[in-house]
């Protein structure tokens, strides 16, 4: 058992512990969940610190035979990419537990499902066997369905079902791809798969299946339809996990499996991805602009931001891929912060309609400040990690798709428009006496928000600590591309 | 031989059709007895005398009588129109005819292996007994259990419970 197993097991053990606690002891349940979230965060941070950057490559590898008849191993390993994603998961999990501190309804079950979900996410980022990765990916789906269905808001029944069917339909494609890969090479070990040479038509077909399968999660236009409903209906902590981590599973898997194993297939489909990325960025940003519900704005902005990741992936060079992975990290934190803020404000005002707000800065200056910070991060202002990530993506992608990249940069402008419009509508303008009774964010509400904002700023100021790490994970993958083309 | 075969076959089919088509349940039962006899005749043609005997003894002597008993004891009033009509008579007849035609076509197109010529006058009872109690011992014993299950079932369903 290595560190990685401990990280994956922590949430599952936590869930098992929670089963044993009587459901009436809600405070105790929350404390235990927070404790396990902290352990998870500490372990992933420990992993972040102890990953030997001078060595690079896969570290902490653990390989235990699982199904001998299929030659499937429980194989874990972490490179720069996985380490950064695991750290992201740890951060958002911890913040998510704190955000949920005031939950009253079915507390025990909520945290059990949340912990299973997080365990699945850690598993995806840290496993090196495709079947194991797929299993963890699926483990993350069903708890999410239950979480949205029971604790969600709005048209939660519809959203939960839509989300689940979209994701499982995607999985159906990746499952077929998985089976084809397995039949072709009789192993599903990612590191071994990367060493095998595949015929180009095979690569094209497999990458196409993977593109649909993982693209649903990213989400890729036009497979993105679950996202706005899913994000908006989910309870705050789950929206944070959904936008912060789950969407990144798709990007991660596309880079690790899609590009890492099937570079020729990726190269064939890359122009399509680039075009879709532009649609994601521009079209969805425009959609975000006309939304009336605050949560829908944020949800659409998430899809739009994942478009940058996609064009980074499509460009397939070191800089753009590093940028894409960095953007996943940056956007993960930023989106989580956004949803946490929306949730916190909703808890006070019980509305999410933009038209209802106005002048909130008078009553809630701290919320306004944090919102502004998040908004500025979202539109990629220098000083935040998002700027670094987007800059890397554009710098890398411009060489390959000069026109498309230029068009994509337009999305930054649109983002600026809708973010500033939201900030203006909500917080500025004349003081609205309707909200005079509101108290500003304080105490435990503030902790996760400040925690996330500080991380965003910290990596904005010292980006190299994480971009170097990611870069080390990307380098072998890019070498793979170079070998194939 | 051939003529007798076709005679028995024709009788069998006629009786069977009559059983199905008759509206009176008692008539049906009686026609069924006729068809049992015709089958017994076919058995004799195949030189399976014992089987023919058993066929008459068991089916005519026991089962048909039981059926008549059942009909007479359970029905109140007239037995006219006691055989339930079937909505699917035409469809059933059509599909049966098609199925029959297809089978006949297949049978004509199939070459059967030459039948092993039976030993005339051989004691079929001994042969049957030997087969049943050696090769088919398991099936034979299981048949006994099957009968037991049937009896238990009759009791479970028939017995009045509070």
């Amino acid at each position, binding site marked *: 058992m290595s560190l990685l197993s401990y990280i994956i097991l922590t949430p599952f053990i936590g869930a098992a512990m929670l089963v044993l606690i009587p459901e009436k002891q809600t405070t105790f349940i929350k404390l235990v969940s927070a404790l396990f979230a902290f352990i998870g965060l500490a372990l992933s941070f420990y992993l972040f610190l102890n990953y030997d950057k001078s060595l690079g490559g896969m570290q902490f590898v653990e390989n235990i035979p699982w199904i001998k008849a299929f030659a499937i191993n429980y194989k874990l390993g972490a490179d720069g990419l996985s380490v950064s994603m695991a750290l992201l998961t740890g951060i958002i999990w911890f913040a998510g537990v704190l955000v949920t501190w005031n939950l009253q309804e079915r507390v025990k079950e909520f945290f059990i499902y949340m912990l299973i979900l997080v365990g699945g996410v850690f598993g995806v980022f840290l496993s090196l066997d495709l079947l194991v990765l797929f299993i963890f990916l699926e483990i993350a789906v069903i708890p999410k369905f239950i979480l949205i269905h029971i604790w969600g808001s709005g048209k939660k029944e519809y959203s939960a079902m839509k989300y689940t069917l979209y994701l499982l339909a995607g999985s159906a494609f990746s499952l077929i791809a998985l089976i084809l890969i397995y039949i072709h090479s009789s192993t599903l070990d990612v590191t071994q798969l990367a060493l095998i040479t595949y015929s180009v038509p095979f690569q094209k077909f497999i990458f196409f299946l993977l593109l649909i399968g993982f693209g649903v999660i990213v989400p890729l236009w036009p497979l993105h339809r679950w996202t706005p409903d899913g994000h908006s209906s989910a309870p705050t902590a789950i929206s944070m996990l959904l936008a912060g981590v789950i969407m990144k599973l798709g990007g991660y898997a596309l880079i690790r499996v899609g590009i890492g194993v099937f570079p020729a297939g990726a190269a064939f489909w890359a122009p399509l991805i680039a075009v879709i990325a532009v649609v994601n960025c521009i079209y969805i940003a425009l959609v975000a602009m006309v939304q009336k519900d605050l949560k829908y704005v944020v949800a659409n902005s998430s899809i739009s931001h994942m478009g940058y990741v996609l064009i980074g992936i499509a460009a397939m060079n070191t800089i753009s891929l590093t940028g894409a992975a960095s953007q996943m990290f940056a956007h993960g934190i930023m989106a989580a912060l956004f949803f946490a803020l929306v949730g916190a404000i909703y808890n006070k005002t019980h509305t999410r309609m933009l038209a209802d707000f106005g002048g909130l800065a008078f009553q809630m200056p701290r919320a306004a400040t944090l919102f502004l910070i998040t908004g500025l991060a979202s539109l990629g202002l220098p000083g935040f990690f998002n700027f670094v990530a987007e800059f890397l993506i554009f710098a890398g992608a411009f060489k390959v798709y000069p026109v498309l990249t230029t068009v994509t940069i337009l999305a930054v402008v649109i983002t600026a428009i809708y973010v500033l419009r939201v900030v203006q509508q909500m917080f500025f303008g004349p003081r609205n006496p309707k909200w005079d009774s509101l108290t500003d964010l304080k105490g435990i509400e503030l902790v996760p928000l400040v925690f996330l904002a500080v991380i965003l700023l910290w990596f904005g100021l010292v980006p190299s600590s994480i971009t170097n790490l990611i870069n080390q994970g990307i380098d072998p993958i890019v070498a793979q591309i170079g070998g194939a083309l | 031989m051939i003529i007798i075969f076709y005679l028995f076959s024709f009788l069998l089919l006629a009786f069977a059709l009559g059983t199905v088509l008759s509206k009176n349940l008692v008539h049906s039962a009686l026609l069924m007895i006729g068809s049992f006899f015709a089958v017994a005749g076919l058995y004799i043609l195949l030189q399976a005398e014992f089987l023919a005997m058993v066929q008459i003894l068991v089916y005519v002597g026991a089962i048909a009588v039981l059926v008549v008993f059942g009909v007479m004891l359970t029905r109140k009033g007239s037995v006219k129109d006691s055989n339930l009509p079937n909505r699917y008579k035409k469809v059933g007849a059509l599909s049966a005819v098609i199925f029959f035609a297809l089978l006949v076509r297949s049978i004509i197109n199939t070459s059967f292996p030459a039948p092993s010529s039976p030993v005339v006058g051989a004691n079929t009872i001994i042969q049957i007994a030997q087969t049943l109690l050696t090769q088919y011992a398991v099936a034979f014993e299981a048949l006994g259990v099957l009968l037991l299950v049937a009896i238990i079932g009759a009791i479970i369903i028939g017995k009045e*419970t509070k």
Partner: protein
Amino acid sequence: MILSWPTIILEISSLGIGLLLLILGLVFTSLKSKATLGYFSIIALLLMLVGSFYLPSGATQTFINNFYVQDSLALFFKQLFIVSALLVNTMALRYMKPHTNNRGDFFALTFFALTGMMMMASAAEFITLYIGLELMTFTFVLLTAYKKHDLKSGEAGLKYILLSAVSSGVLLYGFSLLYGLTGALDFSSLVALFAPTSSPLLVWAIVMVLAGLGFKIALVPFHMWTPDVYEGAPTPITAFLAVGSKAAGFVAFIRVFFQVFAVYSPIFMPLLIALTVLTLLIGNLIALAQTHLKRLLAYSSIAHAGYILLGVIAYSKLGLSAILFYLLLYMFANIGAFAAVAALVINTGQDKISDLAGLWKSSPFTSVVLLVSLLSLAGIPPTAGFIGKFYLFTELVSRGYLWLAFVAVGMSLVAIYYYLVVIRTFLSGSVAEKTSMTIPFSLKLVMLVSVVMTIGIGVFPGPFTDYLLKVAQAFLG
């Protein structure tokens, strides 16, 4: 003549215990002492299960004249039947109490059905196979109609016996054609006699055997009886039908189509593929419209027959072991689901899906069991169902049926939808007037075993796949 008794010891003990139970039921006069009969049956089954592991499993043994064989395939299926009978009888301990007046005949009948299934697993000759099948079917008819004052139960029994009689007629017609064409009915002679060329009548024989056995495994279009019988039968018997009877149908199917008709696989394969696709489509699509849990599970069991047949279509050692693996996990998932239904029926007398609302509160344990069982049926990891489907689909694709895998995966998605509808019903719902459910200990035990096995096989499938691969290798040589 040498009789190899170990070949048949399980059947003899099952029969003997059944008879003993009947006699004990008459000897014990007080109601209280009769109540011990159920426990007796469970202990006896446990002993049989333990004993079965000490039977020689390596080489194929025959009882007499190749008509009755005990190979590792037969032994695996017999153990599967014993486990399912064990779980079913435990489930029935309390469930059947109002209907049996503590008589011993209910439990005796389950043993007779078990004997019939075991005969089907070992029979290597068509008449023996047929007698085993009839013994099982007939017993099931009685068990189905056991709640004789319940109109639905009686109707189900009547439907089952009528349709079974028709299917038996077809099956026997098929056998008679085979005999007429070859002069033999035992599998080894038939294999030796079959020439690669076929006559039109032989095709008919194969089609009729397919139809007759297809009835038992609920293959579309021979599935019509399933929903009504499943709904009307007492819930433990429904579970036994869905698990035991279906597995018995499959073992006969495997023997006949993998072994006897192996030469003719090019002839029956297109038909089998067409029927499998139909089974997958109809089973899953009609399940969408169901409002009662037992009917839903009936259609899902039809659909699962389709998934298992994918392994037959793959027609390989791995395909066979995938079938065996799937039957194993299917048993635990289904028993878990039916045990949850039994808990619901004991408490509310209903099995409507909408009645499940609030189950998370009234019985969290039952809702977890139902959740895990349904997820396993849907094929979601980490339950065993996922590994089973992965195994089947992998083998299918490696045999070149990529399109069929797409159909099957697509239909799994449909299945996931209707399972999710059930799941979301019992995980939410108002709880104001719901009091907590009382669930007998025996039922809890069944649920616990099935959940532990469903997740256990999903997380540690290695030992099971290894063992079943050996079984398949031994069978196909």
